[in-house]
């Protein structure tokens, strides 16, 4: 994509936002996400949101089952940990259980349009 970028820079009349072949709706809805500002601000904003949500517990009385779920910000912490556990377990599990694409030998090796019929014929000829 760097080439496109450099092309844009050379262009005397660059598009104000978005890329050359981008859909106008995408420009409207999503192009701002690619800005550096968004990158920097997003984490901060999210952190602020979490803090506010945690603080709201002081104001809003929460129903709970009386167990460990009565701990402060239980659902937030649980959600954080659960998410992290699920994602991080992807590393060891992936190493354990990931196999090459054609592990079951069910994909055609050469010709992607190879249909079952031809495969069968091959099998019989051999």
């Amino acid at each position, binding site marked *: 994509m760097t080439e496109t970028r450099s092309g844009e820079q050379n262009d005397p009349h660059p598009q104000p936002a978005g890329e050359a072949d981008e*859909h106008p709706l995408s420009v409207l809805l999503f192009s701002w996400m690619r800005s550096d500002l968004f990158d920097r601000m997003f984490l901060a904003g999210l952190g602020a949101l*979490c803090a506010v949500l945690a603080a709201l517990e002081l104001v809003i009385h929460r129903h709970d089952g009386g167990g460990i779920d009565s701990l402060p910000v239980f659902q937030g912490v649980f959600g954080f940990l659960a*998410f992290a556990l699920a994602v*991080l377990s992807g590393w060891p599990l992936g190493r354990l259980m990931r196999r090459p694409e054609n592990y079951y030998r069910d994909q055609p090796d050469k010709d992607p349009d190879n249909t079952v019929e031809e495969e069968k014929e091959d099998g019989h000829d051999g």
Partner: protein
Amino acid sequence: MTVDRLLDIAVTINPGFYLIAAAVWAVFARGPGSRGVALLGGPALALLALLYAPASGTEITRSFFLGFNMSLYRPDSLSMIFGFGFVLAAALSGVYSLHREDRMQDSAGLLYAGAAMAAVFAGDLISLVVFWELTAVASVALVFARQTKQGQMAGMRYLLIQLLSGLLLMAGVVLYGLDAGSFLFADLGQLHRGVLIGMLDIHAPGGLLILAGVGIKAAFPTFHNWLTDAYPNTTETGAVVMSAYTTTLAVYVLARCFAGLDWLVWIGAAMTVYPVFFAVMENDLRRVLAYSTNNQIGFMVCAVGIGTPLAIDGAAAHAVAHIVFKGLLFMAMGAVFMRTGTTKASELGGLHRTMPWTTLFCLIGAMSISALPLFAGFSTKSMIMTAAHTPAMFAVWLMLLFASAGVLEHSGIKIPYFAFFSHDSGKRPKEAPFTMLLAMGLASALCLAIGIAPGWFFELLPYRSVAMAFLAQDLFTADHLLVQMQLLAFAVLAFVLLKRLKLYPTEQPGVILDIEWLWRKAAPAITGVLGRLAGRLGVWADKAFGRAGAGLISGSGQIFAPDGVVARHLPLAGAAIWTVALLSFVLILAMSSPG
């Protein structure tokens, strides 16, 4: 015969039959107009039939089957909500598939919908089995529609498992019905607060068989693999259709037959948890959605197992909402698949530039499934969570909570993020066709409608008063919204942090081992070894087959092939020897008989 009389008859017909009739029409439909009539007219008729359905609990019984009483149409509030969901699904998938003229798929989709709907409205076990089998038959065309070897093999596996489920169910039903002396729902169980649920006794003969048959279709743990195997291997429309009916029908039957069965609580809880780990690793996004289906069905199964009115309402509501938002996600992935030819996360990314509408709808679906407040999943899943939130089931509740965070991970973030954002794959596909976008838009609107103003939807639930009370007192309370937002916001925070720290696993191509390994690798390997042994013993071994390693097929192939051991042209002498051998055996048997 006046029009009134005709209408009287028309409303006593199982609404599923209208869809089946439309399926027949679709076989012969040529051109967009005619197809449109079939694909939209059928669901419209069925919806009308639903609206004018006879009073709840009315039975329309025909005894034309081997002298057994069959109740072909028995609407009640439980079947109505599922029927409503199926009509929605039929209409949405109808719109979605308008872009591609494939009469076989149209017809199969409608037949699937019709059979599922008819099953939901059936009033006895026999008709239930009949329509259950019909759904399996209808799926044949769908799974075979993708003309690759991979797709066809997956289709074959799917078909076998569906039929196994049907056979188990059939055997169980025969045993159960013969023992109980009737096959009619009304005779088998009693109403629970006005609704006939949990009518079968698991300990009666056949009960376990029925549970096993339904369990396979509901993708119980260790039987879940057909789902993740088949859905990613169909066409874009096939996945949408299959995701809507197959497992949902199983949830309905579980609710009807086994509501309150405590095993289901744990089975369901387990089903919500383990797919999370698979989904994290999985690269194929449609397969991720399949695991996600697994996980969502777990919530419903768990709720069915809890069996309180609120839980049953939750299960039914979540099942129907799931049809909509999971259908929406499959539609979005289908559009991606159609435009790019793949749904592998490692090959996608940055598609939002040219497919913003699809991106938008996919995001709505993702938020719905993640149960973000004001989206469909929040309204329905909350019922289940609330029903499970009791001290006695605290562990289960924690499991469900974990799964909720997991859903956010794989369906809420992973699907839209890796397909449409993430690193730019350089792919610039065209936006999906208008009809597809229309279907997705409608589904999105439904998601919002259920999420923002769930009242109309809760009206349809089996225990209406319980649902309305929940809506009034529990759903949109500040503390409920707060804890839900906490869960989601902190989980998203975790995502962003992990991504920053480069701890998020990169998307790599590859397949993830699952239980299917047993029959796709281990069994062929074992038979392959045996086959090689047999080869040493003098059986002619087919070299090409041996190398291909499809041991199971090749082994039986060698035995049964046209020139194989068993089928080889039986020489006359051989036949005569068999004859004499059998004769002498019968002689010995006869002469050794006492008296």
